[in-house]
């Protein structure tokens, strides 16, 4: 299982959390998510795998957590 966390505005679109059966890579995961939640396509976000932000397609292992992080606006 892969856990996917959504934050900020993205959680309004997709809910705070979802679990998916094994997906090979982040590119594949994002493709699936965009199919399930078409509104995601218009949103800017970065991706973290197990709390490390990534900039390229990344292979996913079982039980990993992927987080979709829209632009930060703390403070």
């Amino acid at each position, binding site marked *: 299982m892969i856990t996917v*966390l959504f934050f900020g*505005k993205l959680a309004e679109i997709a809910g705070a959390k979802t679990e998916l059966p094994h997906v090979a890579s982040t590119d594949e995961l994002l493709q699936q998510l965009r199919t399930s939640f078409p509104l995601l396509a218009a949103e800017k976000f970065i991706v973290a795998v197990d709390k490390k932000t990534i900039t390229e397609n990344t292979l996913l292992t079982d039980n990993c957590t992927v987080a979709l992080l*829209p632009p*930060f*606006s703390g*403070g």
Partner: protein
Amino acid sequence: MDAATKTNRVMERKPKNIFVQGAIAPAFIADSIAKHSSKTTIGGHNIFLGQVRADLIDEKKVAAIEYTTYEELALEKMHVIRQEIFAKYELTCMHVHHSLGTVAAGEICLFVFTSSAHRRAAIDACNEAVERIKTELPVWGKELFEDASHQWKVNQ
């Protein structure tokens, strides 16, 4: 290894919790300042406070901001920021507190507090910490308007 050393080592490894529920009270800030009177090597403190603005957006007024975070990642990130700032500046101490949940317009949502023997280090470290908190911490502010609609805050 004595108890104090042991405590320090544990603190270094385990990120401190910076999050507080709701607004940061001025009395809490006063307590935090007062606690430093026993640290008599300190010559200067610098404090930054973020306050929620009642911005007018398309004729609707912001009544409050609701903050959420990815807490695990935020605390790890803050831990790295803290270590890098301590490595860079001659600080005596640094304290960071950020609100989660709802903070009304006019209330304090961020409290960054640095202290050093000579003012330059405290001022520069505080400045850098604030910039990094704003750009690097996974925290999101939802601006709640008086009519109960909302929009997601964008940092400048």
